[in-house]
């Protein structure tokens, strides 16, 4: 390395921070604003200053005393976890089949998945709803979860590439040792694609968490409601209670943040384990 190059790493490092800090600020700013607003009283909610002064916990007190946070988060957690788990099982099994067991099916099945994604969801929700009620699944976890497995196509497309990246030699070796396909899948493929499974799983989980129309149609009873429907209860004909809405939104985002923090460790885990942290 030339002595004149010694400054360059420092400049590069500063630039690195600048870009990432700028991007982070831009992306996280609305959330920061929501957080600050959740500490504003009703007289300050509309004030243009982002700082909550005087700060108050009234919004949180009001939300926690009259809004069924626990129930809503619980219902939504069951729905989202159910959909994420279901889609991952479907996608991992399919990915394994398309890469290892029946590779000749791959182009056709992946095309079928892509077409399925191109179907506008708003156009098929009525038939889906009628079918679900016909099955007697309205007001049930089954009705909330099973129809949302139709979007497994996305998980399949994302995961199949990762299954394909597993070295063929490892899979062959397992087969030579007499492992059944399911054993190969469990012991060889799954550990290799774990970061991708977690990444796709958390994205499906959150997408389902933010779903509005389907739970509205399927779970009309108050004790079946999900977070997004609960949040709509802060906006009535009589106006919106912005401070409380933001407090409720912060409270219901926390479970996702926790899930993400746990998952994200594991997503980048593979190189941390390799002891390569600087």
């Amino acid at each position, binding site marked *: 390395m030339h002595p004149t190059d010694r400054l360059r790493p420092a400049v590069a490092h500063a630039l690195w921070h600048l870009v990432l800090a700028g991007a982070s600020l831009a992306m996280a700013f609305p959330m920061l604003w929501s957080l600050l607003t959740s500490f504003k009283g*009703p*007289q300050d*909610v*509309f*004030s*243009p200053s982002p700082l909550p002064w005087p700060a108050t916990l009234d919004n949180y007190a*009001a*939300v926690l005393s*009259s*809004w069924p946070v626990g129930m809503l988060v619980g219902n939504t957690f069951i729905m989202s976890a159910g959909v994420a788990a279901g889609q991952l099982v479907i996608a991992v099994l399919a990915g394994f089949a398309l890469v290892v067991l029946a590779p000749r099916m791959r182009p056709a099945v992946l095309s079928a998945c892509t077409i399925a994604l191109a179907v506008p969801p708003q156009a098929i929700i*009525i*038939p889906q*709803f*009628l*079918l679900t*009620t*016909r099955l007697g699944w*309205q007001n049930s976890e089954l009705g909330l979860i099973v129809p949302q497995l139709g979007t497994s196509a996305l998980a399949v497309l994302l995961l199949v590439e990762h299954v394909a990246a597993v070295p063929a030699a490892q899979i062959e070796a397992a087969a030579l040792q007499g492992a059944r396909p399911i054993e190969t899948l469990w012991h060889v493929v799954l550990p290799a694609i774990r970061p991708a499974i977690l990444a796709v799983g958390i994205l499906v989980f959150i997408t389902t968490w933010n779903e509005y129309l389907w739970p*509205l*149609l399927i779970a*009309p*009873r*108050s004790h079946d*409601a999900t977070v997004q*429907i609960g949040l*709509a*209860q*802060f*906006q*009535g*004909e*009589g*106006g*919106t*209670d912005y401070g*409380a809405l933001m407090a*409720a939104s912060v409270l219901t985002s926390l479970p996702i943040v926790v899930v993400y923090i746990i998952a994200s460790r594991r997503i980048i885990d593979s190189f941390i384990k390799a002891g390569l942290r600087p």
Partner: protein
Amino acid sequence: MKPLKLVGTLGALSLVLTAVSCSSTPSALSPANPVTITFSSYTYGVQGAAGTGTQKLLDAFAAAHPEVKVVPQSIPTADVLTKAKTDTAAGNPPDVVQIGYSKLAEAFQTLPVQSLEQIAGNEWKDHVSGINQALVNTGKKDGRVAALPFTVSIPTLFYNADLFRKAGLDPNRPPTSIDEVRTDAAAITASGHKGAYFGVVDSGKSDYLTQSVIDSAGGSTVGTDGSVTVDSPEAVRGLSSVQSLTRDGLQPAVGLDDATASFSSGDLGMFVVSTAVAGSLQKAAAGKFDLRSAAFPSFGAGKAAPTFSGAGLIVLSQDQAKQKAAWEFVKFLTSAEGYSIVTKNIGYLPLRADLADDPKYLKDYFASNRLLLPPLGQLAEVSPYRNFSGQNPNQAVVILQDDAVAPIVLRGADPQKTLSAVAGRIRELSGK
């Protein structure tokens, strides 16, 4: 894959072809054997006054009527009709629905709405005498009343008395006509604040305020024969005068939510909007500025003729026992006691004329809540809310609001040309 696909398709197809069938076994209502009905409501469950007020109604009804069990469903305002329609399509309509007036025509056309007059039988006359007649008559389906008013508000002029003082105006003499609104808005604008805002571009895409402006200017969106008259000279005149406020810098060219924020933070002088938001404006103004209200202004020579917004109650049950139970519920909600709970706890206007002066009901309430007094005075002579005829009344309203009212009022589109074009489209839509 093929057989599966076929099964799915056939299963789905059969749904459409299956008619809803219902058995009806009439039985007397008794507390030992209560009848359960569902109530689809957009005030139930709402966080704040609307939710607690609705809960009070339910509690009071449950105490008085153990023979009926009401299961409430909380549905967001914008989705009440969607939900009622999908549930009906699934063969499971809710029994009682709190339905917005701008959706009522569509509900009458496409939902199994029952005639309340018929279910009530000989109780009808006594019950409805005393309820605002314009509102009762708006609920007529094929000549018989099928919707009774429940949570109703009318547009009114809220104003910031502090800004009036600052602009050298007398806060005890709020404007009564659009011309006075103009003059006062000019004074407030000159003192460094925003002048006035008419919430005609409603965020829920309702046209209640558009109708109020046009009716007050002597016109109407729909003629007595059902014809589309949104391009009449009166309609053009009404919207032109609201537009001129924007053009002359006296009204900010922003959406309703932006204007609400501006008024709530004390920077907007006058705010013409539904009384439904009185409560939240009061909360924002408390300790910050002097919030007052005045009647909806007149437009030109005639009297002000605001129409109303809000919701009525309809019954969809086909089972006789449920119909009877539903009527008991509706009867309670629209009784003197029910209406008083609604006004006291939620802030909608009382729909029986005598309640406001009755010491048993709302006299005390109105003695200390002066904000609702001006609109209360106008309620007696309110104009009917009008629905467009034809198959798609809802779509017609959205076209009127999006393609005419918003471009005219906010973006300076030519009123006559724009309204003519939109009238043409609505006529085509309604087959007139």
